[in-house]
C-alpha cells in the first residue's frame, strides 16, 4: 500500500528529496503543493480544493516521511532507556522539542510542554496554575471571540473556584474593543486569556498591546496561538506573554500533539498537572516528588511519533521562511478579498481590509444556509467548513448560528480562488438566486 501510494505521488517524493528548492529562495507553488500528497486527491470527480485549513492543515511528505522513518527504524519508549532504540527515540523526541521551542521564539526547550493540542494546553494552565492561584473574587478577562477551547476551561475553573469571567467586547468589524478591555481590567484581574488570531474572523489581535496592559494591571497573560503558529506569527519573546498555546495539526504536523509554552519560573512554580510515569522524581506509597520541567507536566508515554512529526513540521515551516509564507498568504488574502467583494449577496464577517487579518474568511451567502453551501461546494471538490467553528458566543454576538468559512494556507493556489468563486456562482444557481 505504502509503495503504491508512493508511485502515485512520484513528484511529491522527488520534491521531498530536494528540500532546498522548495524552501526559501524561489517560492515554487507547484513544488510546494507536490509536497502534500492529499492535495492531488479528487473529490466527486474534481481536484480537491482544500479550504478548511483553520480546522486542520495537511501534512507534507517531509513530515510523513520523518514519522514513517521513526516508526520503521527508531521507535521505543522514551526516557530512561539504555538500549539503542530508546536512546534514538529519546533524541528524536527531545530534538523535536528544540525545533518547536525555536518556532515559539524561546531558546529554552524546557519551556515547551507537549500536550494533545492547544485545547489541552489551555486546560493544563487552568488546572495546574488556575487551581493553585485563583480564588473567589478573582477575575479572568477573556474576549467574546474566544474559541470554546479558550473559554470552557475557564468556565470550569470558575465553577471550581468561584472566580469571575469578564469578556472584552468585539466591534462590528470583528476586532477587539480595547476601550472595553481597559474598563474590564482591574485590580481583581489575575489573568487575561485571549486568542492571537480569531479562527472565525481571521482578525489578528494586538497581542503585545493586550499583554502590556494586562501586565500593567498586574495580571498574567495566556495567548491562544492555535491560529497564529501556522503562519509563523508566534514569537513569545516579542509578545511578552506568560503562556502561549498551539497545536501541531494546524501547522503541517500530526494530530494529537500541541504545545504549551510558559515562562520557566511559572512552570517551575506550578504544581503538576496529571500524575503517572515520566513526571516523577521519586515515588513512595505515601507521596511523590516531581521531575524537573518540562517532564513534570508530561505524565505517561507521550505521543512520541506525533512529537517527532511536530518537530519536523516546525523545521519545514522554518525552511520555507516566515517572510515567504507571509508574502504568499498575503497575495492570496488580497485576491480573495477582491473577489468576495464582487460577489452579490455575500456578506463577509470580520475585517474587510487586508490589514490585521489572515486568510480566513467567514461569510453569509444570501439565504443559503452554510451547510447547504458546503454540501454544494463539496460536489465540486471544494472543502469549506460550515458551522459555529467552536465560536458560539461570537455567533450569538452577530445574531447568527453559523457561517461558511473558507480558510487558506500557503499551499493554496490562486486558481483555487477561481474554483471557489465558481462554486459560489453554482450555489446561487441551485438556490435560484441569492437574496
Amino acid at each position, binding site marked *: 500500500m505504502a509503495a503504491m501510494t508512493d508511485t502515485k505521488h512520484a513528484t511529491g517524493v522527488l520534491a521531498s528529496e530536494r528540500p532546498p528548492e522548495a524552501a526559501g529562495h524561489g*517560492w515554487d*507553488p507547484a513544488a510546494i503543493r507536490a509536497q502534500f500528497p492529499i492535495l492531488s486527491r479528487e473529490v*466527486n470527480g*474534481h481536484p480537491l480544493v482544500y479550504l478548511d485549513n483553520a480546522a486542520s492543515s495537511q501534512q507534507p511528505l517531509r513530515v510523513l516521511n520523518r514519522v514513517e522513518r521513526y516508526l520503521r527504524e527508531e521507535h521505543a519508549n522514551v526516557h530512561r532507556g539504555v538500549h539503542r532504540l530508546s536512546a534514538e527515540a529519546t533524541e528524536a523526541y527531545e530534538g523535536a522539542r528544540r525545533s518547536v521551542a525555536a518556532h515559539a521564539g524561546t531558546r529554552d526547550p524546557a519551556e515547551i510542554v507537549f500536550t494533545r493540542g492547544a485545547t489541552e494546553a489551555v486546560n493544563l494552565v487552568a488546572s495546574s496554575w488556575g487551581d493553585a492561584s485563583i480564588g473567589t473574587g478573582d477575575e479572568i478577562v477573556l474576549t467574546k471571540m474566544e474559541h470554546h477551547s479558550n473559554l470552557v476551561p475557564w468556565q470550569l475553573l470558575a465553577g471550581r473556584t468561584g472566580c469571575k469571567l469578564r469578556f472584552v467586547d468585539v466591534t462590528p468589524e470583528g476586532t477587539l474593543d480595547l476601550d472595553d478591555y481597559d474598563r474590564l481590567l482591574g485590580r481583581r484581574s489575575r489573568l487575561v486569556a485571549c486568542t492571537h488570531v480569531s479562527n472565525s474572523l481571521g482578525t489578528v489581535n494586538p497581542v503585545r498591546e493586550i499583554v502590556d496592559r494586562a501586565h500593567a494591571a498586574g495580571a498574567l497573560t495566556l495567548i491562544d496561538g492555535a491560529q497564529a503558529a501556522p503562519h509563523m506569527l508566534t514569537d513569545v519573546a516579542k509578545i511578552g506573554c506568560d503562556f502561549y498555546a498551539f497545536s501541531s495539526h494546524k501547522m503541517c504536523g500530526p494530530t494529537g500533539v500541541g504545545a504549551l509554552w510558559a515562562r520557566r519560573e511559572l512552570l517551575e512554580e506550578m504544581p503538576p498537572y496529571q500524575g503517572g510515569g515520566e513526571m516523577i522524581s521519586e515515588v513512595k506509597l505515601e507521596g511523590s516528588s516531581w521531575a524537573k520541567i518540562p517532564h513534570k507536566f508530561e505524565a505517561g508515554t507521550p505521543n512520541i511519533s506525533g512529537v517527532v512529526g511536530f518537530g519536523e513540521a516546525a523545521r519545514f515551516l522554518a525552511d520555507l521562511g516566515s517572510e515567504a509564507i507571509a*508574502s*504568499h498568504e498575503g*497575495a*492570496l488574502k*488580497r*485576491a480573495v478579498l*477582491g*473577489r468576495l467583494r464582487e460577489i452579490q449577496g455575500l456578506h463577509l464577517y470580520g475585517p474587510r481590509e487586508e490589514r490585521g487579518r489572515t486568510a480566513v474568511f467567514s461569510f453569509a451567502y444570501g*439565504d443559503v*444556509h452554510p*451547510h*447547504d453551501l458546503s*454540501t*454544494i461546494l463539496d*460536489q*465540486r471538490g471544494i472543502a469549506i467548513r*460550515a*458551522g*459555529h467553528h467552536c465560536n*458560539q458566543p461570537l455567533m450569538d454576538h452577530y445574531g447568527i*448560528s*453559523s457561517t461558511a468559512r473558507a480558510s487558506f494556507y500557503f499551499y493554496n*493556489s*490562486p*486558481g*483555487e*480562488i*477561481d*474554483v471557489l468563486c*465558481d462554486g459560489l456562482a*453554482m450555489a446561487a*444557481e*441551485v*438556490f*435560484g438566486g441569492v437574496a
Partner: protein
Amino acid sequence: MIEPRSTTPGPIDREIPSSLNQLYQEVILDHYRKPRNKGQLDEATHAITMNNPLCGDVIELMLRVKGGSIAEARFLGRGCSISQASASMLTGRVLGKSLEQALELSGKFTHLLHGDGALLSDDDLGDLRTLAGVSKFPVRIKCALLAWNCLEELGDGTGADGGSG
C-alpha cells in the same frame, strides 16, 4: 511570486451535478423559503425542542392532539433548507393522524432517507418523497430527520409536557 489573480488550469465544469438538482428541488426550496405552519402553537398538548449535533441548529415541534388525533402541528427554530422543508412538510402530513400513525410515517420516512427506493411509490409519504435525494448525502440525513426525531420523542411520551409550547 504568485499573481493575485490567475486562471484555473483547464475549463471549469459549469453544469450542476444531478445529485444536487435532486437534492435541492424546487418544492424543497419553496418549503424552506415559505415554511408552512411555522410559528408558536399556543394550545399545544405536546412540545419538544431538539438540536442537531452536526450544526447546533434547533427545531421545536408543537402538536395539538385532540380526540386521539393530531389536530394541529407547528414548528419553530432555524436550520438548513433540508431541515426546514422536512419540518414544514411534517406539519402538513401528520394532520388527522394518531400519534401512532404519525410514528409509522416517521419510520417510513427514515427508511426512505436510508435509500429504500420502494417507498417512492408510497402515497402516504406525499411530498416528503421529494426529500429522497438526501439519501445520497449521508451527513445531511440528520437534517432531514431533525423534526421527525422530535416527533418520535413526543410519541415515546418522554418529551410531552402536556401544556403550552
